């Protein structure tokens, strides 16, 4: 049991890491990764939704009739997304302002629905939590690393939390401004996908 738990957890960190291996959920990946902070915030919010929706769907998997399962999944996911949105407004309002519309859009993030349909509806609650946690952390790491590349090249800083950069290039550093614009998201993601494939090939 412990072994399969660990297996479900770690697959989300490398073998099935969402944006790079499954290439799912690209909308938030491209849109919010202007800084590490935004990436982490989005990743944590998605992880919260993933873990709780996986848990609930797994608990209810024998009760939900298969014909209306997608509708039920969406109700559960939308509920947790709205809870996250309210909590972020109440406790981390500045981050909420930066992520804005992309928080409610977690509802239609195909990673969340994908895990519900492909995993949680067929497996036990403990395994589903491990799966949600693994995929969620993998998603957070991906967003943070893409955010780090874009923020470093585009702005010359690395900001992990709270708006104060922990690392700053000197005034002589001329940033590639386009990296924090929309085209930079595609270039950054493309390069990272390419690197992941290079490493994975061996």
């Amino acid at each position, binding site marked *: 049991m412990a072994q399969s738990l660990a297996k479900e957890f770690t697959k989300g960190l490398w073998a099935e890491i969402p944006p790079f291996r499954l290439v799912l959920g690209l909308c938030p990946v491209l849109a919010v990764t202007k800084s590490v902070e935004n990436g982490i915030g989005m990743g944590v919010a998605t992880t919260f939704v993933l873990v709780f929706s996986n848990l609930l769907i797994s608990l*209810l998997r024998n*009760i*939900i*009739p298969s*014909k*209306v399962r997608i*509708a*039920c999944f969406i*109700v*559960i996911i*939308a*509920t947790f997304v*709205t*809870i996250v949105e*309210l*909590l972020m*407004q*109440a*406790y981390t*309002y*500045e981050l909420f*302002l930066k992520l*804005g*519309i992309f928080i409610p859009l977690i509802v239609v993030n195909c990673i969340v629905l994908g895990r519900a349909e492909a995993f949680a509806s067929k497996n036990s609650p403990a395994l589903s939590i491990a799966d949600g946690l693994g995929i969620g952390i993998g998603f957070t790491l991906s967003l943070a690393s893409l955010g780090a590349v874009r923020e470093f090249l585009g702005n010359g800083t690395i900001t992990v939390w709270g708006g104060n950069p922990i690392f700053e290039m000197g005034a002589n550093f001329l940033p590639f401004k386009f990296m924090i614009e929309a085209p930079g998201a595609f270039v950054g993601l493309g390069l990272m996908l390419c690197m992941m494939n290079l490493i994975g090939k061996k």
Partner: protein
Amino acid sequence: MREMISMIVVLAVLTSVSGGLLAAVKSGTEVRIENQVLKFQKAPAIQDIFPEATNDPLAERFTITTEDIELQIFPSILADGSKAIAFETKGGAYGGPIGLMVGINLSTDEIVDVRVTTHAETPGIGSRAKEDLSFVSQFSGLKMETNFALKSGGGVIDAMSGATVTSKGVSVAAVQAKEIYQKLKPEIVKQMK
């Protein structure tokens, strides 16, 4: 038949439980969210509208209640000593209600300035109403009896190109502010003494 009933029952129970849960979370976080909106949305807007206020509009805020509205008023004293107020109204825009903080000079009945507060407009399109001040600055200095509708609706406000619905939401909020102001001005003046 059995299957149909079970589908209906499961969906109905699920939606009502989640509705109840959301209502509970909403009411539990309401006060905190209101404080956060005050701190991160209304306070900067008021600071922008009255940059040279000689008092603290946030600390001196008061509420006016009539039969149909409850309005939070932020009083301010301008640099030349004249009194002004700011309050927030909402207009329906593309992504839901858009909040507009309207600052009005009480002695001249002119708009000092307006700022967009809370909104859910499309980033880069409707959100320009908040980020790009050239749209909201059209309001500053206008008399309160001006028609705040868009030019296409017979008013004086130029819409932002590509964001007509957002522009309309802002102008609806301004028109609403005008109506409230004309109705409540005596009451507001009385409370400020």
